[in-house]
Every structure is written in structure tokens, then in C-alpha cells.
């Protein structure tokens, strides 16, 4: 029974991750794209936790939600905010 719930949650978070990956790719406003990417990472954190990899959760959470978006935002700040066609 708990196995079924795990699989359902895995499917749910995978779907959330997929949707926000798509949004991050098509979004032209790069700041918004970074935020979508961070939400996708949050979904992946949940997936990694459900797959029983708490060590990876601990490193993925600060890197993918904190450090990586921050680095990208610094770079956006030094270049342009909106992607051109």
C-alpha cells in the first residue's frame, strides 16, 4: 500500500517537474525562467527523497534552489533580462 502511494507521489512530482521544465525552456523573461527552474528542482528534491536518497537531497536542495539560481541571476544582472528572438 505505501509502495503505491510512493509511486503515485513519484508520478505527481515528475509531472510537476516536467511542466516547469517546459515553462523554463519556453519562457523569454530569463528571471521567470530561473524561478520555474527552481520550482522544477523542488519537485526533483521530493522525488529524490521518495527514492530514498537523503544525501542527494541535502546537496541538491541548496545547490539547485539556492546557489544555481543565484549564480544565474548574477549573470542575468550583468547581461540582458529578456531573451531576444
Amino acid at each position: 500500500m505505501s509502495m503505491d502511494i510512493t509511486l503515485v507521489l513519484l508520478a505527481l512530482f515528475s509531472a510537476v517537474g516536467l511542466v516547469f521544465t517546459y515553462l523554463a525552456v519556453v519562457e523569454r523573461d530569463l528571471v521567470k525562467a530561473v524561478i520555474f527552474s527552481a520550482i522544477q528542482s523542488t519537485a526533483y528534491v521530493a522525488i529524490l527523497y521518495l527514492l530514498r536518497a537523503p544525501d542527494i537531497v541535502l546537496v541538491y536542495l541548496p545547490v539547485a534552489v539556492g546557489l544555481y539560481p543565484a549564480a544565474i541571476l548574477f549573470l542575468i544582472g550583468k547581461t540582458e533580462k529578456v531573451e531576444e528572438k
Partner: protein
Amino acid sequence: MRKYVVLFSIVIATSVLAYLTTYLEAIGLIGLDTRYLAKLFLTFAYNPLARELTAISPEAVTSIVWDFRGIDTFYETAVFYMAIIAALAIYRGIGYPSIQSEKGLSIIVRVVTKLLIPINIAIAVSIAAHGHLTPGGGFQAGAALAVISVLLAVVFSASSFTKVGISLSKAIALRTAGLLAIAAVVFIPVVFSAFTGVQAYLMQNQVKVDSAFAFPAYIQDQLISGTLIWFNLAEFLAVSFGFFVIFMLLSLREDVVKEQLGEDHGH
């Protein structure tokens, strides 16, 4: 039309992967069965009865990362170290100004962040110091502490680094100290061997079949897992201040950098 093709291919690919991983058991039955290799690691990660084979740590991941495949992890740390040297090379010759703009975010964000920073430090230190007992370790703790550098740069402005007493050279010195500490733990068995004549190997943790050398596994009945706690603490220092260096450099304002380089330097 193309959108539907993309969507269709994603659905097909996901279904095939789901089928392979669940019904065909391509990567083993998820969560129900433990594979042979995993059984080996679980048996020997913490096993006081097999002292020549164990890493004497109940945390299987840390046992693998710093004992069973320790030299891999050492080179990973070296790669991270080199990456930051590349960043420092790009910003070479640029002094970190003590005062940049004083602008930060609003008072609400500042107060909340001020409350969060001590919690963040406590969590990072506990992840590092308990890395051989519970999920976590040096890199995880370093990444957790590095978030503070982002918070300082974004919420309080880049000049806050100077205010809390972190200079660029201090951060570089601390991360180098971390790497040197890892190297020291790696070489201690060899030095011990040279002085006493007892057989010992590079990066050795516990006793081996032909070597009586071992790092202490307990301090007053408290499990410290030999080398693992020292590797975790040193890696914590190296990684966290490595990230500090990167974010201190990234948060430098462009006009400050250009001013120091002069007009004729294309940067």
C-alpha cells in the same frame, strides 16, 4: 503540429522508461529488493566484527564516498578547487573594495534573513559533524553554508561581507586550509609508517589484513568513524569557503571592476 509531436514523443519515452523500470525490473525492483552490491556495502559500512573490511560508519553513503572510493572524492574536491582557481584567474588583480553601494532589500527581508542565518550555520555544522552518522557530509554541509554568501550579497549588499569580517583573502585561506587538512588526513598513515615501520596505506581508515594502523573509531564511546569525521569537517571548510569566493567575486559591481581595470582593458 510540432508541439503535438514533442508532447507525443515525451509521453512515449516516459511510458517506455516506466515500463522498463517497473515491469521489466531493468534496474531491480524499486524499494522491494536489495541488490547484491548494495548488500555488500550495507554489511561492511558499519561492522565491528569485520574490522579489516569495515569503514566503521553507519552512514553507507559517507563510507563509500570517503573510504571505499575515497581517492575519487579527493579528486572531485581537487576539481572543485581548480574551478575556483579559474574564477580567481579571471578576476586577477582586482581588489575587493571595502565599501560598495549600501543598498539592500527592505527591512522585513533583512530581519527575517538575520534570524535565518544562525539557523543556517547550525544546520550546516550539524550536517558536517554528523556526516558519518546520518545522511549528509562535507559537500552537503558546505553547500548549505554557501547559501549564506548568496543571502549576504543579495539581501544586505556586497559590502556586508566586509562588515561580518570575511575578506576575499580570508575565504581563500580557509578553503585552502580545508584542502590541506584533507591532504594531511590522507598522508598521516604514510608518515606514521615511515616513523614506526608499521605497514600503512595512503588514505587508510581502519585496520587492513596486512596493516595494524587505524584511526581512532571512538572518542570516549562516541563514534567518530576514524577518518570520516575529519574528511567531512575539512571538506565542509573547503567547499563552503570555495562557494564564498565565487559569490564574493560574482557580486562585485561591474563599474567597480571596470574602474580598477582601466578603460583600455576589454573584460
